[in-house]
Each structure stands twice: as C-alpha cells, then as structure tokens.
C-alpha cells in the first residue's frame, strides 16, 4: 500500500498483504486505513456508515441503558488484546445489530467531522468543537464518558492511519 493511503502498521497482524493467520479467520479485520475500508465497502456496493448513522444505531434506551454504558466503558478502558474475538461473539442491540461494542473501534465515513479534507487536515487545527459539530446527542452529555471516548478516538485519526483495534462495517440504505 502506498504510504498516503495507509501508514506503516497497515495489516500489521498479517504476514503479507494477501494472507492472514488461520486463527484470525473469524475476527474482524483491523489495522486498515479509512481509504482501504471505504474502498472495500464501495466494492460491495455499500459505504462506511456516517458518524450519525453509527451513533443512532448504537444508541440505547430503556432501563438497561445505564448498565450498557458501564459495560462499554469497561471495554473501552482496557488495552487491545493481540487476538480479537470472532465477529458475532459480542452483544446484539435492540435493532438486531451485533458487536457495536466489545470487539473493535469502527471507522465512520466522516470520522473527524470533515469528509472532504480528512486526509489533508492538520493536527494543529483539531478542535473540540468538532465533537459537537456532527450533531450527535450522546457526546453532549458530560456524564457520558463512553461517547467522549468514541469522539476523541475518531478525532485522533487521519484517513491513512491504521490501528490494531480499529476495524469497520459497511452500511447501505434500507430498500
């Protein structure tokens, strides 16, 4: 991969760009850049979900919301394990969506609030206003640390970055 499209950790857990360890067959793909993730989704006729779509899908309601928040926080605070558990092994939420929490971070289409210039953005211009700029409800609640963590994680990225705990899922309009 060209350096502009992915950094040096690209698929670091794979021995070569085209092969992976057997034990990883069921685990989510991580250490991929935004470019690679979005290209994959487009190839499948889909695209990365926007941050708003992702956050909506992940939003919890009802009496289990508090417990869920605790679980999410406990997962976020632990360092990344070498082997990520298989896809589908995490929890299912009220929309029937699997593994939003508990396996990996996920790329979103507009991960840093600026779709157009994602790759050109300077680190010096990062601004916490972007946390709120995407219009998410969750991030505005100062007692919801998990949302803050998600937003600051996304905010630390550039489109060519790859991270051992960062994977993706694709989305498409419902028919």
């Amino acid at each position, binding site marked *: 991969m060209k350096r502009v499209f992915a*950094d040096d*950790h690209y698929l*670091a857990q794979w021995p070569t760009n085209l092969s992976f360890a057997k034990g990883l067959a069921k685990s989510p793909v991580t250490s991929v850049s935004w470019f690679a993730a979005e290209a994959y989704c487009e190839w499948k006729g889909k695209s990365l979900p926007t941050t708003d779509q992702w956050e909506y899908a992940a939003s919890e309601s009802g009496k289990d919301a508090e417990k869920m*928040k*605790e679980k999410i*926080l*406990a997962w*976020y*605070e*632990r*360092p*990344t394990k070498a082997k990520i558990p298989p896809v589908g092994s995490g929890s299912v939420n009220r929309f029937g969506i699997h593994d939003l929490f508990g396996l990996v*971070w996920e790329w979103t289409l507009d991960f840093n609030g600026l779709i157009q210039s994602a790759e050109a953005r300077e*680190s*010096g211009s*990062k601004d*916490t206003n972007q*946390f709120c700029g995407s219009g998410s409800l969750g991030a505005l609640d100062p*007692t919801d*640390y998990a949302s*803050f*963590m998600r*937003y*600051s*994680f996304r*905010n*630390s*990225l*550039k489109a060519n*970055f*790859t*991270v*051992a*705990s960062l994977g993706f899922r694709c989305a498409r309009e419902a028919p």
Partner: protein
Amino acid sequence: MRYPNSWNQVKRLSALIAFILAGASNAPAGDNDQKNLDEQIKGEERAVLTDAPNVPPAITRKNATKVIVHLEVKEVEGEISSGVRYVFWTFGGKVPGKFIRIREGDLVEFHLDNHPSSKMPHNIDLHAVTGPGGGAASSFTAPGHSSVFSFKALNPGLYIYHCATAPVAMHVANGMYGLILVEPKGGLPKVDYEYYVVQGDFYTKGKNGDKGLQPFSMVKAIDERPDYVVFNGSTSSLLEDRALPVKAGETVRLFIGNGGPNMTSSFHVIGEIFDRVWPEGNTNTVTENVATTMIPAGSAAIVDFKVNVPGNYVLVDHSLTRAFNKGALGMIKASGEENKLVYSGKISDEVFLPEGSGIRVADQKSAKAPVATSKVERVAAGRAVYAANCAACHQSNGEGIPHAFPPLAKADFLNADKLRAIKVVTGGLTGKVTVNGQEFNGVMPAWSLSDEDIANVLSYVYASWGNSGKEVTAQEVKANRVKVGAKGQVVE
C-alpha cells in the same frame, strides 16, 4: 530541625545584586520570560527520565541546551492494592509518569509516543509549557502513532503534567500524570536524598478491598467519592521493603505532586517538620518550618527536611481517612544512631485497654471473597489477608520485631497447636508468651475476620517460612473461634 539555610542567604544576596543591577526599578512581569526566551541554546542532550520514587540527577550545566524527551504512553494492568487489579493509563508504564528534569531556558523537543496496543488516543498538557493547552493540542496521538512538538522553558518551578484527552477526568483518574521540574538557573540547594512522590485518587466499581480486576467507576468519580487515595499508584508503593531509605542526620527532599483528579492533599510526614517548602512548586518563594502543606490537584510542592533521629516516618494525606482507609500512606526509613536528646523513645509502656477497644475491625472486607476450594487456593488467598492485616506487626517475612511482635516464622508456639492459633487470632492475645525462647508481653487485638479469611491466613502462615505446613479449614475456625461480644469482651 533547622540547618544553616545557605540557600536563603544566597537568594537574598542575589536579589540584592539584581536590585542593584536593575537600577532600583521593579522588573515588570514577564521580564524573566523574555530573558529565558533570549538565552542562547548550546548543544543537545537526551533527557534522563526516571520512574518514581527516583529523581534524575541535578542539572549542573551553566547554559541552556536542547533537550530531547521521549515519553511513551502505555495502558497497563497493575495492582492498586493487595489482590486488587486496575488498568492504569500511564506516561512510561507506571503511575506516576516519568520524572522530567530540565533547566530554565532549555528548548525541549517533546516526542509523545502512543503504544500500538493502546485502546485510546492520548496527549499531554505540561503545566511548564506556556501556550494554548500546554502542548495538548499538538500532542494528540492515536494508538501506534507519535507526535512531536517543542517549547522553551520560560518559568522555573515544579509542575504537574497530565493527559488532556476527553474525558479528561477519566484519563487523569487512570493515572495519567507526572512531574516536570524546570530547575532554576543555579539549581536548588544541595541535599543528600531526592525522591519523587505523587498522590492520586482512584474510583473503582467495587468497594475498597474488593479483589480482582476493578473497572473505573464514572459515577463515583463524578461524585468525588474515591475508593483509593494513594501515593505512586498503589497502597504499598512506599511501604515495607519499598520504604524510602535515608540516613539519620542527612537531608531529604521530596518532589511531591498531586495528580488528582479531584482531591486536594494535606501533605504531612508524621514526626517531621519541613525545614523548607516551596509551595505550589514555586522555586522563587521558600517558606520555613511547615508541618503540613496543601497541594492542590494539578499542582506540586518541594519539601526539604533533615532527619535527625532514626526510625520510620510516615507520609500521609492528613485528611486522615484517606490515609488510614484508602491507602494514602508511605514511609521513610531512617537508619543510624539514636539521638535521645532530640527524641527520647518510649520511656515506659503499660497496657491500656478500655472497654470496647479489644477488637480490631479487619481492613479487608471478606463479604465477597471467593471460597477457596483447595489448599493451594487457601494459601494464595491467605497471602493477601496477611499482607493487609498481619504484616504490619509480624513483618512480611514473618520474622516479627524483637521485644515487640513475636515471630511467626519457624515459631514453636504456632506450630505446637493449631486450635490454639485459631483462638489467638479470633480472640486476641495479651500477657506473657514465649516464642522460640523469647518472651513477649504485648497485646494482639482480636480479629473480626471471617472464618474463611482466618482459615486462609493461618494456612498461609503454616505453609510459609519453614512452618509445619498444616492446613486450617473454615469449619475448624468456626468450631474453635473465640466469640467476641459487641464491646470487644470475650464471651466464651
């Protein structure tokens, strides 16, 4: 506890000289900044960074230089208290982060490296940096990445640094803080020992003492209800064989910080008076003869004192339930010759036991302790009970202290009779007792530990230090325990 305060004299003298040089006019604020900004940079070096309680060597350079600092952020699981695990987020692998020592006027090239296994992005806000965010904006770093920024050290002093990534309070609550000393030109006065200590408050899902991996509790953090308040990231980091060693008659300096995130520290060393304190890390203003100094969260102080008499000096946050119930305890161990004039030592001792004081409520909560299913498990669990409740007197090696606390290692009294040992621990022991030929005449309180905990601790003691290896079960404890009434009196 005073010794010639040459530093003060030097300072007064240099202030006088500066006064004369300045043509008798008061220098406007920021003047010193300009001087430091203008100071020419000569050469380049890589900063020596140390883990607490160690401090890098004093700077002897007479010029400003370019200092390269590499600080690696790592998220690591560690022990906050005996048997209690916690995921710490660290600057350099430990809590507190590495001590950074530079000189006023230095140009610092700062590399913040975030380890690839990190789950979180992190950054650093050094209170020694002037500029928006103290470096935070330019050091925001994703896992597996590295950021570089530079700053000129304009203001001398001792400063905290910390992570400032949202949610900031959580990053700090997980241990992301440390100290940076910007040494004034000419340095600090010489002392014999320098040590590095940082206080922090921790919030866990379980209560104080609940074993196992404890996640961070956001609710308790927001309510400012810490389960642990500790020095250097754990309840035992400065105790027993990790106590800070010094020699009586010599001078000690503590660089003491408070990472918070929430609690202000009333820092005190029991049995000492600080000869000099630079409050809030301000190296321009020294005060003298202070017993307890206030250290705000996100701040630091430098304290110097001479240890006149050998013995143990206990570091505490003098908000005392933090010290005695939450872990804010440390120790300085001074070896050397007694000085009976300064301190007589104990002149006489008689047992004083008012009604109700005979029972000691154990430090360890036993309600949730898992039940041991094998002798191996018993012994392992007993080790933690011992460390928390018994080691203070009988010592972690079981040797006890001559004339005060009898040995449990190779102890004939203990090995002779298992049921008697159960009675001793559940009912306490006073009066003369002979252990390994030595006579003791002290008081051991009765322990309000559960059957399970007592079985575990005795099995551990029997399995250790050349003892007979007997196992004690919870049933045996139940059947043989001495019943102690609410007022501490023996009922049976």
